């Protein structure tokens, strides 16, 4: 379903993704783990047509994101790592917009919206502007939106960041259900090893833009001679803490936007 060969992405003098190859068969839940700045999000951006690769080849369901962007976008759904909601619209309007963009018929759109907002306990706030939501509520809405249509491939980029355990549980149950009943292929990243352990069929560990290990949780533990996936992860990637460049412009812009739109 997903095939990546010798993928490289360079930004000026920095190599974010350095010659990685892997394949994810249909119906698999594949976890992509790595420390901050390892190249996880960059890989997802290339797979989802947001960034062109420097070199190497990509395939989603047999289609090439660099040359068949429109067709590729029909194949997947994605929950982004950072916010992507429109704060000036209500929760229901955000879902409505998503449903229209993803060609979900009106009737199904209404039904799913209600079902998902209830599932993530946002139904009674559906007509509230999203900018008035707390961080956790926004996150929940973001995930509910990701499930509005049923794609062939679902990308989840650190979906549980900032979620409470209840919502996390809902999320993963839902992902497993989709995977089992609809054969949805799932490509996920997370920093919570127990989550990857719980849902993923196979796990790839990426560090400094290179894949350092790939296999089932058990294979990774056996290979590193450790008891838990977390220990295996640390054994593979070391214990140094990584820095990511911050998004410096956003705060300034937020202030400016507040000035303009109350």
């Amino acid at each position, binding site marked *: 379903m997903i095939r990546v060969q010798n993928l490289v992405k360079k930004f000026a003098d920095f190599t974010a993704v350095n010659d990685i190859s892997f394949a994810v068969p249909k119906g698999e839940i594949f976890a992509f783990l790595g420390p901050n700045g390892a190249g996880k999000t960059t890989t997802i*951006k290339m797979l*989802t*047509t*947001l*960034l*062109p690769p420097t070199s190497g080849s990509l395939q989603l369901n047999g289609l090439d994101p660099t040359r068949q962007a*429109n067709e590729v*976008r*029909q194949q*997947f759904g*994605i929950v*982004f790592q*950072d*916010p*992507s*909601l*429109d*704060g*000036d*619209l209500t929760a229901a*309007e955000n879902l*409505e*917009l*998503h449903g*229209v*963009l*993803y*060609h979900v018929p009106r009737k199904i759109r209404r039904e799913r919206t209600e079902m998902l907002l209830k599932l993530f306990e946002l139904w009674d706030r559906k007509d509230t*502007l999203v900018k008035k939501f707390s961080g956790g509520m926004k996150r929940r809405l973001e995930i509910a939106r990701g499930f509005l249509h049923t794609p062939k491939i679902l990308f989840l980029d650190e979906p549980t960041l900032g979620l409470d355990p209840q919502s996390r549980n809902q999320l993963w149950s839902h992902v497993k259900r989709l995977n089992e009943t609809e054969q949805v292929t799932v490509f996920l990243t997370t920093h919570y090893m127990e989550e990857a352990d719980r849902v993923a069929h196979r796990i790839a560990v990426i560090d400094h833009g290179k894949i350092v290990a790939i296999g089932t949780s058990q294979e990774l533990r056996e290979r590193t001679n450790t008891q838990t996936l977390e220990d295996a992860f640390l054994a593979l990637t070391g214990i140094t803490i990584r820095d990511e460049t911050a*998004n410096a*412009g*956003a705060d*300034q*812009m*937020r202030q*400016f*936007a507040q000035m*303009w*739109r*109350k």
Partner: protein
Amino acid sequence: MHAIFILWLREVKKYTRSRPQIVASLAQPLLYLLVLGFGFGPVFQQAGNGSYLQFVAPGVIGMTVLFTSVFSGIALLFDRQFGFLKETLVAPVPRIRIMIGRTLGGATVAMLQGTLIFVACMIAGFRPVSLVAIPLAFVFMALIAIVFAAFGTAIGSGLQDMQGFQLIMNFLVLPIFFLSGALYPLHNLPKVLAAVTRVDPLSYGVDGLRGVLTGRLMVFGTGTDLLALALIAVFLLIFGAWRFSKIEI
């Protein structure tokens, strides 16, 4: 089609929900209209050109449409920073439709804002030469709005931060306004200035608006204005769509 409509609707909803912004952005054109309109009045009259308020009102309407539509195009920058842009860019909809929806939405908002200023001009004492002129004036407003919403999208597609935004506003949008003939007649200008005003798309917009609304002091003629604006609109829509399709996140 649905995608274009829903993105258009988004722009309009955002506009109607931000009342303080509506009021704030009316302040500047009103200042031009009232302070310049009445301030320059006597001098303008003595020069034999009639009422300055009559002269400047179409210019101020054009200016309002210009600023609102460019701003709505450049608001792409906010969507990029706040993340919503990604949501539309990965959707299974050709990017050209996303761009068209946004641009038409921005143009509609600019027309609504222009209409408010039109009404304000009437209250201040501006009188169109005939009521028949008003529909044609709206055609010109629409063309100005589309031209500059597409222009804003083309520029917004490449902007990464607020500094860039301010540069564009000060070095591109303000000159477009000042060189358009919104505030002074384009007759008998020094050669260089005259040449520059002729490559300014807003010149044709203001000229057209002024022509149909007051019937006086036209430079190019209604036909030329319509043709020029339509051609520029087509070009900028294509250019904007191309720039939009090249966005990387």
